[in-house]
């Protein structure tokens, strides 16, 4: 059974069909890429998968359960986590607190326990703190744990966003242009990190990218989106050599 099973997903905005008959199957542990020219609808697909938009047609199944049309919060609890094209960090919180927010649904104590600092608060906060630092270490951010997220350099901000998404213990990680704005060195670092995350955390990754080095470097399978429809799908090397795909990117 595929971890992510999407059939016939579609949405239109005021008469314009933004995404049409979108199918995708991603197996557990796969590193999957979603590519296509600008405006093809890739982020719209992400928004559909994560509950930001409700689809007009289609079915989305995550690890067997139907998440079609569910809210962002429910989908997050079902195990899908995402990052955003324009980084969305909690700017006025520290790096560590950003990750702690990601851990929100993994550790619980109630409001009263929090206000009165009861033993459960202390115990759970300690666990949250340890786990947050663990995650930061994976991304080599533990040295900047107390720094304000807004003060981080751009590359580290992107890493933090991924760290926060990972903190939700997802089954599927959706990364929206994680390498945007990065130089070749940072991109190489990112490629290594995504693979490391996939291996260490048993993660399945779906990423949107324009950077072909990254796509061909780590993605095992690809789906190419053009004008909201699937143009090609399959093993990376085949898809990238598909003449239709080449035309779509380079134009006639």
């Amino acid at each position, binding site marked *: 059974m595929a971890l992510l099973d999407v059939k016939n997903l579609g949405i239109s905005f005021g008469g314009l069909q933004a995404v049409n008959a979108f199918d995708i199957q991603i197996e557990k542990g796969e590193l999957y890429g979603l590519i296509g020219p600008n405006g093809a609808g890739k982020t719209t697909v992400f928004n559909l998968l994560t509950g930001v938009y409700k689809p007009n047609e289609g079915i989305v199944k995550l690890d067997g359960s139907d998440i079609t049309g569910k809210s*962002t919060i429910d989908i997050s609890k079902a195990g899908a986590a995402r990052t955003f094209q324009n980084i969305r960090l*909690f700017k006025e919180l520290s790096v560590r607190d950003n990750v*702690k927010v990601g851990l*929100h649904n993994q550790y619980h104590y109630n409001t009263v326990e929090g*206000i009165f600092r009861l033993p459960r*608060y202390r115990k759970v906060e300690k666990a949250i703190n340890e786990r947050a*630092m663990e995650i930061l270490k994976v991304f080599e951010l533990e040295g900047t744990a107390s720094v304000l997220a807004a003060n981080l350099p751009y590359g580290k901000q992107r890493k933090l966003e991924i760290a*926060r998404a990972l903190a939700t213990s997802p089954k599927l990680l959706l990364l929206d242009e994680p390498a945007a704005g990065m130089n070749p060195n940072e991109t190489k670092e990112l490629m290594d990190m995504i693979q490391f995350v996939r291996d260490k955390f048993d993660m399945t990754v779906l990423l949107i990218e324009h950077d072909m080095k990254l796509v061909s470097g780590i993605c095992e399978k690809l789906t190419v989106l053009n004008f909201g429809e699937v143009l090609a799908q399959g093993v990376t090397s085949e898809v990238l050599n598909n003449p239709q795909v080449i035309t779509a990117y380079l134009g006639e």
Partner: protein
Amino acid sequence: MLKKIDKRTKNNFITYAMIIIVFMVVQILLASQSVSSLMQGLLVPLCVYVILAVSLNFTVGILGELSLGHAGFMCVGAFSSAFFSMCTKDVITLGGLRFFLALIVGALSAALFGVLIGIPVLRLKGDYLAIVTLAFGEIIKNIVNTLFIGKDSAGFHFSLKDSISMNMEPGGEVLVNGPQGITGTPQNSTFTIGVILVLITVFIILNMIHSRDGRAIMAIRDNRIAAESVGIDITKYKLMAFSISAGLAGAAGVLYAHNLTTLNASPKNFGYNMSIMILVFVVLGGIGNIRGSVIAAVILTLLPELLRGLSDYRMLVYSIVLIVMMLFNWAPKVREWRERHMPKNLLKRKQTARGDK
């Protein structure tokens, strides 16, 4: 890691210590009779304003929503508790117990209003939310002004027009008399109780901020869409923050109501004028800075009194001081100038996360 936790606890400790020290100093001054009766009369109001400022800062600085109707919650707390105290005056004769119960009545009523108002209001965007909260504040004040509640042997009577249309028996007592409000509330508020309430308020707010709930609320403030994406229930936490803030404002109202013999909902003490005055405390003390709210509320309440020497000109001076302070603290060009001449100061400021004081 352990160092950071200590730093925060140390910071909070400084805030509590500050409040307790001021309390002790005032007590000494009172004992030695060196406090004018004017200043004595300000002691309980000072506590009221501090609680209002800290609770509003929770909504504005931590939740990140501009509420211009905070006085409305104070009004609910004041009137519900005063009404309760009046009704139980003869039944519960132990003043302390009755006041404690009145406190709970006032705070819970205000918190309830916080939830009722929050449900429709918190989904509005920024400026619209501001004007609707202002509208609610005015509505509450208006309705309280037209409320007539009386009691006789048959029970309670109620009218929105005047006291006569309640049709009470001749021996009936008018408890809430429309624009004249409630008269004869037992005066249970003391400076000591006020300071205790201040400490409780600061305790609740500071502990909420540094907890899982507080982080969720601040995450909503900083980026609602990202908060949703990590599974945070936006409505639940917005309502939680809003109603806790309202409940604490209600408690301030209880303190206020039991400090006067007459309680009425005049525009000056329960209208947008009051809401705005509290907002000024919050902004001047630093949005998200709890200790700052305490300090600002105290200074800005005392300032007009200290300026009494200037008598007629004092409000004018107050407004000029306000404008100058805002320009000094917030104008980017001024901050650049300050950075060049006092670098250490400004650098320290930018490094603490909003909500860490």
